[in-house]
Structures are given as structure tokens and as C-alpha cells.
């Protein structure tokens, strides 16, 4: 019971409180690209969550094999990119071999769900703060879900942000930044923000 409670708490923390976009701003550029097309969000969500989950598990084992602390931290990106690339290629090969229709569908955006700041950032953050295997797994899934949540919240107002009623100088990207800013201001409330007085 205690374990389940802890896992749920950790999942809530990584999805909502430490949300990839709203509290760390990781992967905002990808979010702008993905939020354009509502149809892809579901598939994108599954692929990004899958990749963060697998990759963070592999990061756990990589941390056991290579010592990336201290001065050798400069080689960490190399190791992480190799892991990411391996997962990416193996996934594509697997899909191509066993589910061709899915492969064709997913090919358009799988590179966006693998090579973005959210995934790579997750590897860095997780390897910095997590210790046990469950931590790695839960946080890996949580980062993916949190990213998808942010994409979803942005996509549902996409046509409002690009609507004719919005003044021209703010239409599109500038307003999206303000929108994300206001939302991350509200999500700030979750991190137990207590003023210093």
C-alpha cells in the first residue's frame, strides 16, 4: 500500500508538478510543431511516452555501467544520444518488420518524439535526481505523459490562438508563448509556492 502511494505521488509529481513544459520549458519548440495537428496528438503521445519510458530504463543501466559523474560528465550526451539512437532505430525496424501500416503512419512524427529537448532533458534530470529502478521508470513515463498533457492543453486552444479576432502582432507564436506563460504561472501553484515572509 505504501509503495503504491509513493509511486502515485511520484507520478503526480512528474506529470503535473514538474511538468516538462510548464515548469521546465523543455521541448517547447517541439510542442509548437506538434500542437498544429490535433489528429496526431494521440499517436505522438504514445510514441513519446514509450520512448521516454524505454530510454529512462536504459539510462538506469547506463548509469550502472559507465561512471558519468565528476569530470566525465562531458561524455554523458554521447552515451545518451547513442541510447536514444539505438532505441529509435530498433523501434522503427521493429515496426517496419511487424506492423507496416503503423510504421507508415508514425514515420512522419516519430523523429519529433525521439529527438527533442523533452526526452533528452528527461534523461539528464532523471539521472541526476533518481536513484532506484522504479524511480527511473515512473519518472520516465511521467515526463512523457506530462509532455503530452501540455501538448494537449495547447492544441485545444490552437484555433483560438490563430483566430482572426486576435490582433495581428500577437496571432500565433507570440500569443502561444503568453498562453503557456499564464498556464505555467498557474502550475507554479502546485510546487508548494510559499512566499518568504
Amino acid at each position: 500500500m505504501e509503495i503504491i502511494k509513493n509511486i502515485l505521488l511520484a507520478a503526480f509529481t512528474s506529470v503535473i508538478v514538474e511538468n516538462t513544459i510548464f515548469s521546465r520549458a523543455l521541448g517547447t519548440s517541439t510542442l509548437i510543431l506538434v500542437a498544429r495537428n490535433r489528429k496526431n496528438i494521440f499517436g505522438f503521445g504514445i510514441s513519446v511516452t514509450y520512448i521516454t519510458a524505454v530510454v529512462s530504463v536504459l539510462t538506469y543501466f547506463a548509469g550502472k555501467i559507465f561512471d558519468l559523474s565528476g569530470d566525465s560528465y562531458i561524455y554523458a550526451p554521447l552515451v545518451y544520444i547513442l541510447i536514444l539512437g539505438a532505441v529509435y532505430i530498433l523501434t522503427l525496424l521493429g515496426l517496419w518488420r511487424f506492423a507496416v501500416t503503423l510504421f507508415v503512419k508514425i514515420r512522419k512524427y516519430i523523429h519529433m518524439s525521439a529527438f527533442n529537448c523533452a526526452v533528452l532533458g528527461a534523461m539528464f534530470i532523471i539521472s541526476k535526481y533518481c536513484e532506484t529502478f522504479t524511480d527511473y521508470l515512473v519518472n520516465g513515463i511521467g515526463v512523457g505523459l506530462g509532455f503530452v498533457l501540455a501538448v494537449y492543453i495547447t492544441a485545444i486552444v490552437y484555433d483560438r490562438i490563430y483566430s482572426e479576432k486576435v490582433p495581428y502582432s500577437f496571432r500565433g507564436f507570440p500569443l502561444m508563448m503568453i498562453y503557456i506563460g499564464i498556464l505555467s504561472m498557474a502550475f507554479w501553484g502546485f510546487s508548494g509556492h510559499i512566499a518568504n515572509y
Partner: protein
Amino acid sequence: MVSGNEKTEASMMTDMLIVLLVLAAVSVYYYGLRAAILIAITSAVCCLTDFICIKLRKKEAQLSDMSALMTGLTLSLMLPASAPYFAAVTAAVFAIAAAKQVFGGRGCEIFNPAAVGFLFVSLCFPENILTYPGYSNTFMSMPLDSLVPSDVMLRPSMMRAFIATGSSPAPLLDILVGKFYGPMGTGVLAVIAVAAVFLVLRRTVSAIALLSEIAVSGTAVFILSGFDPLSVLCFFAGGMTLFGMIFLSCEYSTVPKTKSSRFIYGILVGGITVLLHYYAKAENAVVYAVIIAAPFGIELDKRALSFAGMLNKKGIFSKTNKSVKHMQETLDILEKNNEEK
């Protein structure tokens, strides 16, 4: 409007303004001249910013548009009576410029402007906005300097104490009449409750959304506080919870338009408020909750409308059937929206 076809926007605005003015009068009664000045400054700056933004966008400003005044009044009632004037001005400018006009002006807001403005100043100047002076009934009790001098006792709100101890720090009567440390006009539970009944009966505030919000959050707090009714009242009075539920979440331009989505939206706002209150120990949980729930309200509306459109295409419900009257109204809104586009 689904919940009142005969109700015009202007009459709803008048209702809201009447209630807000009553609350403003109460706060002037408690905090004296300084409260009046703060309310005047915030409202005036809101209207002025609105006017300037409309002119910058090269649109026609309408005199009948009272929404900026309403934002200003709502915003000022959420500030403490000791709030510095520059904070009030910042809140007003930010609310109108960054949360209203940028999104396309009246009727196009995604977030409630007053909530955004308040949140911004409370994060910018927490030591000024989240500490409160004591009430008194004399007119000149508060000094009129922008920053109140240090001899005025400023304290964290009652909500902080409630969060820290878990039980109500003030007796029942004080909570009902708003005699505790807190924002100027959001703590007088008796007046706000009467206002809520008035607004619901006048169909200005959506009964479905408001009641589901109150039911969800009330029940949750009742259970989590160990079945203590006083805690529930304290939760609604402190931290502007009831005030926020009426004037921030159910304000007609940002509340969802269909009944089913209003119901779910209400549950969402209530749930997030309780979550923030207990998990994150946020003081003004409802303000955060209103902003987080706002995009979902838009999405719920879209879902409900497309669902109704689908049913209509298949001819599942006929116009004579009274039980699907609500669906019909939904469809009317859908058609109206299409015409506008």
C-alpha cells in the same frame, strides 16, 4: 445562452456590477478610505488600459462595454487593503493587456483576466499582496501612503493558519461577517452567499457550474477535515474560495456554454481547488484552479457541440421531445457560432 435564452449580456453585466458594488461597499465599511481609493484606482486603470488597447488595435471603443469595469472591481476586491497602489496598477494593466486584449478582447478571453492579474501580482510582490491588515470600522483607520508604514500590523491570512493547523482559527460568527485577516471584499461569507443566491436566481451565474463546484469542494473538505462543518465554512470564506467560484470561474464570458460541460467544468474547478489546497498548500487555490481549468472548459464545449451535431445528423432526437430540449439549444449555439465564422 443555454441557461436563459431571454437573458442578455447587458443585464447579466448589470447584475454582476450590482453585487460587486455591494461587496465594494462592505470592504469600504471595513477598511475605510484606503479601500475606496484602491477600488477606484484598479477600476479606473482597467477601463483606461482597455480603452488604450482598443485604440491601439484600431477598433471602436463602446461605452456600453462594462466588462473592464467588472474586471477592475473583481480584481480590487481580491487585493488586501494594504496593497501598494503600484501593485493595484500592475494587476489592472496585466489583467487587461495580457489576459484580455491580447486574446482578442471582450468575449475572446481564454482565462479570466482578474484571476490572471491577481496571480501575477501575488507572484511579483508576495510580501505586499499576501499579507493583510486587520479590519476596523473607522473611516480613516488605514494610512494612505502607497506602501503602508511599518507600524501597521500586517499578518498572513487566516487561510495560512487554516492550512498550517488544519482547523478553523476563527469562530463561526467572525467567518460569516468576514472579521479575519484576508482580502478586502472576499471574506464576508454572509453577503457573498446571498449574492450567489441572487445571481443564480437571476440566471446570471450558471447554477450547474456553481453548485457542482461547491458540492465537490465542500464534500471533499468536509471529509478531509474530519467532518468539521466550521472548516468547510472557513475554506469557503478564506482564500477567496466562494468569491472566486462565483466571479472568476462562473463569469459568463469564460464559463463553458453547454450544460454538460458546465457540470464537468464545475467538478474540475472544485477538484483542482481542493487538490491545490491540500497537496500544494496554496493559499488562493481557487485562482490557480480557475486558470488551469479554463482550457478544458473550451474543449468540453467543443466536444459537447460536436456530439450534438453528430446526434442531429443521425436524426436520433426529434424537436418535439422535451427531454432533448437542451441538445436543441446546444445545436442553436452551434449554428450561431458557424454564422459568426
